[in-house]
């Protein structure tokens, strides 16, 4: 079952004696040792100085993290945002975390779930309390794979494939997206994820407003505010692919994945999986035109590595 936890600055926290930044709500039964781990993921860095008065335009950090600290097949889906002034007249933030177990994974993947209206709390003005019911994850999937937001932003939906093509399990190359304030990054992440088969989607980690990698966490797709410390750091990382959305992007290779992003064809899962096989190929060498045979009869094969599944 999925557990949730809410962390913000409040006059009174859930644990007796706490106030200020503290946990104000969580699902009954959330293992106690997970609470400090989720709290530790609640860091938020304001993009604007206090006096700029742009608290309404602060980027929102939508993220999907995995870590051995939480368990092998456990994901953390979070939304962390600036939240105006707290009860003392000082800056506040709101972090809402959802611990998703393997059985709760829905086909749409983490970004699709995060895009569902009302799934995350965007305000909190309740008394501290425990949620009696586990968090319910909506089921569903993207309607098609056409990358409309990418198309609107860069002029070519095929750019969404730049992210999806770099996914290769936990060892996937880090992709850094440099964005400027006002760009809504979650739909872009969602469209790139829509290109992947559903079981792969839950292996992809991301943060739509990445400032630093929390200890013990994995994060493959990182959206960094252009000009920020994180962006400078990313440019120095030789193992990261940097996509700068603040300037025109070079044309993208005509890969099947790019075609899928442009046309949005969704002729059944077969089509998608065949595309995902090409992920094995390095970015620089476009995949050979011939189709690799699809051994979908073997569910014990990792579709990304073509090796037997390691887990379970």
């Amino acid at each position, binding site marked *: 079952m999925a557990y949730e936890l809410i962390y913000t*600055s409040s*006059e009174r926290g859930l*644990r*007796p*004696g*706490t*106030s*200020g*930044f*503290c946990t104000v709500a969580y699902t009954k039964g959330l293992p106690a040792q997970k609470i*400090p*781990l989720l*709290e*530790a*993921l*609640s*860091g*938020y*860095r*304001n993009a604007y*100085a*206090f*006096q700029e*008065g742009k*608290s309404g335009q602060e980027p929102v950090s939508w993220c999907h993290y995995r870590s051995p*600290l939480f368990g092998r097949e456990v994901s953390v889906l979070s939304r962390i945002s600036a939240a*105006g*002034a*707290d*009860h*003392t*007249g*000082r*800056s*506040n*933030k709101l972090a809402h975390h959802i611990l998703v177990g393997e059985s709760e994974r829905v086909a749409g993947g983490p970004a699709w779930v995060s895009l569902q209206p009302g799934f995350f709390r965007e305000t909190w003005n309740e008394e501290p309390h425990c949620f009696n019911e586990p968090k319910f994850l909506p089921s569903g999937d993207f309607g098609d794979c056409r990358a409309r937001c990418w198309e609107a932003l860069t002029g070519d939906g095929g750019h969404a494939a730049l992210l999806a093509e770099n996914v290769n399990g936990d060892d996937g190359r880090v992709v850094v997206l440099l964005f400027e304030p006002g760009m809504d990054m979650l739909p872009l992440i969602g469209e790139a994820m829509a290109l992947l088969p559903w079981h792969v989607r839950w292996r992809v980690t991301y943060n739509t407003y990445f*400032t*630093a*990698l*929390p*200890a*013990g966490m*994995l994060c493959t797709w990182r959206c960094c505010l252009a000009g920020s410390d994180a962006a400078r750091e990313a440019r120095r*990382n*030789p*193992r990261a692919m940097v996509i700068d959305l603040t300037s025109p992007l070079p044309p993208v290779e005509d890969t099947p994945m790019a075609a899928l992003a442009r046309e949005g064809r969704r002729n059944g899962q077969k089509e998608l999986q065949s595309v995902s096989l090409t992920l094995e190929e390095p970015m620089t060498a476009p995949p050979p035109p011939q189709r690799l045979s699809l051994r979908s009869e073997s569910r014990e094969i990792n579709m990304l590595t073509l090796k037997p599944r390691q887990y379970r």
Partner: protein
Amino acid sequence: MDIAKETVTECYVRVVNRDGETRTCHVVRFPCTIGRVKERDLVIEDPSVSSLHASLSVNAEGQLCLEDLGSTNGIYHHYVQVPQLVITQREEVVLGQVTLVIALTEAGLEATPSVIEMARKAMPTPQSEMSAAATTASAMASPPAPTAKEETTSKSHKILKFNELSIPSNPLDGSPAATISRLVGSGRGGIVCPHCWHRFAVDEFLFIARHQSLVGDPVLGPEAPIRFMPSRFTPEGNALDAAGMSCPDMACPRCHLRIPQAASEMPPLFLSIVGAPASGKSYFLTSMTWALRSVLPRNFAIAFTDTDAVNNQILNDFEETLYLHLDPNEIVGLRKTELQGELYNQVLIDNMLVNLPKPFMFTMMPAEHHPRYQEVKAGMSRTLVLYDNAGEHFEPGMDQADNPTTQHLLHSDTIFFLYDPTKDVRFRRRISGSQDPQMEPTARVQRQEIILTEMINRIKKYSGMKSGGKSARTLLLLVSKYDVWKDLLDMELPESPWQWNSACNTCALDVDLIKNVSFAVRQLLEDVCPEVVATAESFAGEVLYLPNSALGHSPEKQEDSGMIGIRPKDIRPFWVSVPMLYFLYEGGFIPSIPEESRVRHPEAAVSCKLSGDVYFVTLPGRPMPVQVPVFFAGYQLRLPGTDLWFTVPPVKTAPNMAET
């Protein structure tokens, strides 16, 4: 089995020494400190046990808790090193070469004892703590037998004696190798990491690889450069990483965080700033460092600079926000201090996520025009290390093994406790007509002596201080937001309590004035919130009460956001550098006004009676005696509200002090 439903009031500890001899102790007072020296509550005379090894205490849930207090050889439980252990039933743990069986009842001690033997066989051979102290050792030096997976981790912890390394014969002055050579030769007891407060020997320093391929650190994560124990150096004295790159940066062997070279070379002075949430700690810290940058060099011939820009970046941003903002009319502000994020380093120690507050570091050195430059250069060159904790960290229950964010309290050379009178309803009643938004009837109030008590309890717990003893450190109790309550203090205070002293060729601190102000503030607090005075003086042998105002002006509410801030043109900090100057005076870094230049006031005829560490002073025309703690002895004091001056005589024997 769960027999720990009720609060634990006693426990039994069976000590099994390396020869198999046993003795059983009945523990009825907590915390109970465990260590090798006779000052501990439970003394274990074995060289593998640290002088202060562990403590048994009762946690907030009423459970018995065994905690490692930074020992060399650690605590092992079922072959795994643990920082702490909650004991609800019979447990066996190994401290060095000694096994402890701990149970809540005497009968509970008796159970399958075979684990002792198994545990001992599985243990790495602990080194002698005695020899460790004399030469080189640390908790990381004797990790459990490594598994294949841990090989890279443990390799970096292998102890290489410094003289086994191929150190260049003449490393460049200022290079890491030169620093290490000098430190080894200086006989300094070791380095205390400013990040995790782990004490380690100089030759345990790790180096930070620079080659792009050498990334993936077990403590700092897959993207951090590898830390390594050097075996080769460049002729200039930098370490060489596995790919042959020259590496100048050094790191702590425990938390793997970078320690600037200057900070390792100049002994640290740790300063802890404690206070309730929203008591203005960040504003105070910012105003203090900003003021010290000019006051110390200009008036006291001490250079005060950032040890390195990377570590102090956030504090520098704070300073720029308040003091270098372009528009003097625009409301600026500092954000509420978070409990994670940019002010903290998150590391994985023993696979546990640990949050460490980032230290701010300043280098203090006598300036070349200091009158005794040559003489004091070595002794006065220090690294000032301070932390900006969120106030939440000081609240009861927030001190956890994975969140040891306030453990600097144990190492701090001085503690500034920020007391915010606007959070005390009794103070508010006495202050009228203030426009300060923090004084609005709806603004939050808080009992701040609870934070002070919690701070004291933590220090006692970490240090194994006896409950009745007093700390030898001076506690500086800073009553903040002086601009709001100054009418309550019957004194006109000068902006700068120091004067030029031609004998020293620097300024000299007016300690007489400071002590007298401290007495006046103490009298006020005694009147308004006596429990704060009582709590502070129950802990520290000396308490200095100082007024200060980080901004010197009430903040304003930002119209649209509802957040409070200040206009730069209004900022006029008051006495923000005085606490630090007093601390430096106590440490002999700056002079006080000499005896012959002091102003003496005619004194009233008084009678003093000493009782414990308090004088009962009877003044003419006053039916009740005034209580004056002995730490005011020798200074001329004025009774607030009167013109009566008096001095209490110094006490011959110092009051009972107990401190590590």
